[in-house]
């Protein structure tokens, strides 16, 4: 979908929220839901930052690190991709206290989601780096660059552009996964919606509003990533420099 269609959907979703809120007494749900949405955004942002950091470290270790670190990176990726996000959150939330480690729910949320999405991200980063044509590496050899110089100045900048669309998808996955933190007592958008529903039983408007809010956030991420891709490409053509 082009940026225009996406923006149109975004506007439609916002209008949808306004309309649903305008019916009857539904507006009374808005403040609570917005507070929940704010917490959702905070968890998502911090989680995404952690995910990107973990993914980059894991990918670079896997590609260029010494054997033990490479093994560590592989284990991290396979482990967090292989287990369920909710199980990971529950494990951090319920099991660690058994060992005397108790963390704030916010920390648990960010850690669990960040590590989880970071593992998927590691494969995205690795794929993007490996997708850069061999000729680019050979050109750096011909110009007598060290491997690190080549990575830093030539390979990674190109890999960065290639990574943006898949990372966009991962960020949205993380955003959706924040709903899970409602199950470890965090008062995010999903938690608020559920609580409001428990009290008032006005299920349809409440959950519709919540869904529309998630949609709005999701579209903001997608549009943002598209713009980022456009800005980073700066003279390059889609698919250029990649195998």
């Amino acid at each position, binding site marked *: 979908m082009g940026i225009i269609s996406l923006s149109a959907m975004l506007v439609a979703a916002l209008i949808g929220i306004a309309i649903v809120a305008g019916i009857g007494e539904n507006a009374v749900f808005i403040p609570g839901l917005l507070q929940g949405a704010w917490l959702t955004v905070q968890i998502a942002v911090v989680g995404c930052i952690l995910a990107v950091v973990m993914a980059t470290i894991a990918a670079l270790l896997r590609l260029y690190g010494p054997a033990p670190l490479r093994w560590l990176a592989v284990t991290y990726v396979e482990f967090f991709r292989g287990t369920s996000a909710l199980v990971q959150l529950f494990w951090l939330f319920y099991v660690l206290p058994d060992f005397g480690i108790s963390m704030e729910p916010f920390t648990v949320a960010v850690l669990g989601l960040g590590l989880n999405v970071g593992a998927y991200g590691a494969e995205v980063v690795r794929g993007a780096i490996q997708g850069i044509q061999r000729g680019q590496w050979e050109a750096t050899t011909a110009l007598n660059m060290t491997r690190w110089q080549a990575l830093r100045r030539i390979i990674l900048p190109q890999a960065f552009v290639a990574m943006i669309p898949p990372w966009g998808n991962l960020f949205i996955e993380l955003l959706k996964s924040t709903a899970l933190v409602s199950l470890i007592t965090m008062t995010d958008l999903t938690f608020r919606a559920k609580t409001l529903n428990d009290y008032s039983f006005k299920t349809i408007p409440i*959950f519709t509003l919540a869904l529309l809010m998630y949609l709005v956030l999701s579209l903001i991420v997608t549009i943002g990533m598209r713009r980022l891709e456009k800005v980073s490409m700066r003279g390059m053509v889609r698919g250029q420099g990649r195998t």
Partner: protein
Amino acid sequence: MIWSWNYTFEALPIIAKASIVTIEATLLSFVIALVLGLVLAILRMSGPTVGWVTSAFVEFIRSTPALIQIFFLFFVLPKAGIVLDAFTAGIIALSVHYACYCSEVYRAGLEAVPRGQWEACTALNLSSWNTFKNIILPQAIPPIVPALGNYLVALFKETPLLSAIAVLEMVQAAKSLGTENFRYTEPMTIVGVIFLVISLVSAAGIRWLEQRLNRRSVR
């Protein structure tokens, strides 16, 4: 203590029983998702209005959390007079959610079939149904099987969401054991390990399948 084997052996039968629920939920949801996904993919390709509405629906479901969709169905359906137990409601929600993912995969597979194949069918005067069933689908499906397989594994890993509406699958079982015995370590770890093992085995299986399919097809 770090680990109690006694507790572990007590927990295993309960978790084993719950794992059956997990597996049932996974397989049922996936089968429905596969069929529904194909329907959605076809709808998307048929006509401007129907196509647009279907696209909007699919995007909406894909962009919002499955958990809310599960809550929505669980709490809304009774109001419409349809009383379903948590398991059924949960299955429906997961099926619809993953049907939308699958529809994207089907769409990619269908679009990858060269235009010329469709045109040859028109030239040979084959009916739409025949074209689809005998020519297009057999070419579209094999390349996307690994992607569908990945979604099967993903669905399996999302069944714990059903614990939020008290379906007694593995994670819910672990939680109950934890609450009863004031200790979560053993049950949660067991469940985690089961997920990990099944996930790794399936991933290997999908890779094997992918290699077999690639060998057969002419690329």
